[in-house]
């Protein structure tokens, strides 16, 4: 019962992280099916409808089930400790935010067993295609509503905690960047999840109540859905990466043994990215037939995002410059993040160029791009954070040898997995299709082999984590020699209640 009724930020954080790990493996299993089918040209294992369900549900599970809950779990564990608070501001609401999720994902995954199968029109749910979904349709819509309710409440909690629960002296510009990036992420979530809720509600009424939002016959427009969806969807991709920036900004200074270079520029860059994220959405729909003015506006606005993002990468590299660096597992993942996230950023810049995008659109180039930013970006940052703070959470050191092995196997295999997809995409291989022309055969086989190795190597991650929870070499309170911040002043493992009396920050 403790876990069901808990209002403690650490318990709830652990629940979020465990759910995220479970979903990571469920979504990962779907990715394995996709790569197995694409191992060779021709139809091998599954029928096309099921293949499309795999890509659709893989995306929904990984975005809403793995990455977002993992970040929320980290926020729960860390933000109260970082800002010197006794707990989250609204503890019962916190429990509610978490406990909606297992139900939401049970609903989503149960759609595989319904008439007509799971949704197969892509996670972006474009009408009119998505309206052909069978009995699963209303269940998917409501599952998304539930995830949205959870995210909004969780975000309200984060914002209020940061704005109202800081210890005396912890001014906003003294906060760790993880708190800053989460503050801005939570703002983005509160601003955009309701828009997604509105969009999917319109889908629901178009299907069941006879409305014509997305039907040209009634004066509506299917493209309107894409606009509303991506008004949510583009801020969403920053929701998936801003907390990662905060994590990397915590880890790099620790292992470079230097303060973060350009703290305030990091804060302003994060805020700029958040602002720009609201005015770039249509770069996801360059080929849909927009007026040229629209294409140009969204192209230039998108390219502008490279500026604040460049500031961040520059600052991380400058932090390492002439530092006394060591390369423990969290640092390896953080450096891996900087390197590979930047690859994803550059391919994003290529995609931002509207005329070039006409060639890349809906090809494997796009798949390669967003997997570089999401897997070697977001997921790597979550793994870095896990290795970095796990000793603080459990009081035990993880197995450094296994951690490093996990990093190297993952990093090699993930590049074997995703780098060739750039070539496939540039050569014209479309995404979301179970079969392909024979000229794509070689790189697909290599990509699949990378995929299987990457998938299996994550079992090692789970093994290291559970082994550390069960025991291991005791960690000191400080854990890392160069670590700064209030969470390191607490004992390891951190006590059940963090700061019942607020610490004073000078």
């Amino acid at each position, binding site marked *: 019962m403790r876990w069901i*009724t*808990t*209002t403690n930020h650490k318990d709830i954080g652990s629940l979020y992280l465990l759910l995220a790990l479970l979903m990571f493996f469920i979504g990962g299993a779907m990715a394995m099916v996709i790569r197995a089918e694409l191992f060779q040209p021709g139809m091998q294992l599954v029928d096309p409808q099921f293949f499309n369900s795999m890509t659709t549900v893989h995306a929904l599970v990984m975005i809403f089930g793995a990455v977002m809950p993992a970040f929320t779990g980290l926020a729960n564990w860390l933000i109260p400790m970082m800002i010197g*608070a*006794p*707990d989250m*501001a*609204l*503890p*019962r609401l916190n429990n*509610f935010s978490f406990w*909606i999720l297992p*139900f*939401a994902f049970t*609903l989503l995954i149960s759609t595989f067993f319904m008439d007509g199968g799971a949704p197969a029109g892509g996670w972006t749910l474009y009408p009119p295609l998505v309206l052909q979904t069978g*009995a699963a349709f*209303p*269940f998917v*819509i*409501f*599952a998304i*509503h*539930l995830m949205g*309710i959870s995210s909004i409440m969780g975000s*309200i909690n984060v*914002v*209020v905690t940061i*704005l*109202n*629960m800081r210890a005396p002296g912890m001014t906003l510009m003294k906060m760790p960047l993880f708190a800053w990036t989460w503050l801005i992420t939570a703002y983005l979530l*509160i601003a955009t*999840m*309701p*828009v997604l*809720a*509105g*969009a999917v509600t*319109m889908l*629901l*009424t178009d*299907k*069941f*109540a*006879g*409305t*014509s*939002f997305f*039907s*040209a*016959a*009634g*004066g*509506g*427009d299917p*493209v*309107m859905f894409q606009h*509303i969806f991506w008004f949510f969807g583009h801020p969403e991709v920053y929701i998936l990466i801003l907390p990662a920036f905060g994590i990397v900004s915590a880890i790099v200074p620790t292992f470079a043994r230097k303060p973060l270079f350009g703290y305030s520029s990091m804060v302003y860059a994060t805020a700029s990215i958040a602002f720009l994220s609201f005015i770039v959405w249509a770069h996801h729909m360059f080929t849909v037939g927009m*007026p040229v003015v629209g294409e140009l506006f969204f192209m230039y606005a998108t390219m502008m995002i490279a500026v604040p993002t460049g500031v961040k990468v520059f600052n991380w590299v400058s932090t390492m410059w002439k530092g006394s660096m060591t390369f423990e597992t969290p640092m390896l993942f953080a450096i891996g993040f900087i390197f590979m996230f930047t690859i994803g950023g550059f391919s994003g810049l290529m995609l931002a160029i509207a005329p070039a995008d006409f060639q890349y659109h809906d090809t494997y180039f796009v798949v390669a791009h967003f997997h570089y930013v999401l897997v070697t970006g977001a997921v790597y940052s979550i793994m870095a954070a896990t290795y970095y703070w796990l000793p603080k959470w459990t009081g035990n050191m993880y197995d450094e040898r296994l951690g490093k092995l996990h990093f190297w196997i993952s990093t090699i295999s993930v590049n074997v997995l995703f780098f060739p997809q750039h070539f496939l995409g540039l050569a014209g291989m479309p995404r979301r299709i179970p079969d392909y022309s024979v000229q794509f055969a070689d790189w697909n086989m290599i990509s699949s082999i990378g995929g299987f190795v990457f998938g299996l190597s994550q079992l090692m991650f789970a093994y290291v984590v559970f082994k550390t929870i069960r025991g291991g070499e005791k960690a000191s309170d400080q854990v890392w020699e160069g670590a700064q911040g209030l969470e390191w002043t607490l004992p390891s493992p951190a006590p059940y*209640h963090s700061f*019942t009396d607020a610490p004073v920050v000078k």
Partner: protein
Amino acid sequence: MAHASDHYYVPHGSYWPIIASVGLTIGVVGAASAFNGSSTGYAVLAVGLAIIFYMMFGWFGTVIRESLKGEYNEQVDRSFRQGMMWFIFSEVMFFAAFFGALFYARMLSVPWLLGEDSGAATHEFLWSSFNEAWPTNGPAGVGGEFQTVGAWGIPALNTLLLLSSGVTITLSHWALKANDRAKTVLWLVATVLLGAVFLGFQAYEYIHAYHELNLTLESGIYGSTFFMLTGFHGFHVTLGTIMLIVITIRAAKGHFTPDNHFAFEGVAWYWHFVDVVWLGLFIFVYVL
């Protein structure tokens, strides 16, 4: 409000959130089954809603008891206030999606169907006989001929009602700050009545639209945006009215003091939000 605690109040284990999750899940499973044509769907939905109502009584009841015991210090009060503000912001963004749909249809997609800008070829080859700008039910005339609701009848009256209710709730707030319980309750009752009359007019207008104007949810994009916007607004007015009734009872019981009445203010903010959304609706749905 005997003593305000020094420590931030952190509640311990609560069953209400899990009851809420179960209620929500049962509710949406029922609704989804009903959409799929299952006859038991509505019953399941009703069970879910019943659990949600039970949860709300219980959860809010717990919070009220804790508040009366004086468990909440100023900082907890600030958390509630900020939480409510951000919740209202999320509601604003929910309406923004539907207003966005309205503006997109009126300013872009309908003109394109009429052949403006890049829609020239579409118009020529697909819908060359389509020539009706807003209000429209599209080239296929989905839902059949319809008439719109005039702005200067009931909708104008409703605007007046909601604006007046904004005044009455402010008078009630002033009375509360002056510690005048009778006046506080009186003005709250007036606010509830104005809200209820608004809802009555709205219901009458819907019946009128369906029976005499042939304006329905299925009347193309006009009917879709009209009913979804006014419908969600009406739903929020209903919630707001229920919330007002709750704080009226609480005010009558003397739960609020001149310096400690978050629930009152939260409801008042919510009521003003509903009011502002209505002004947007009145201008963009009815007048223009």
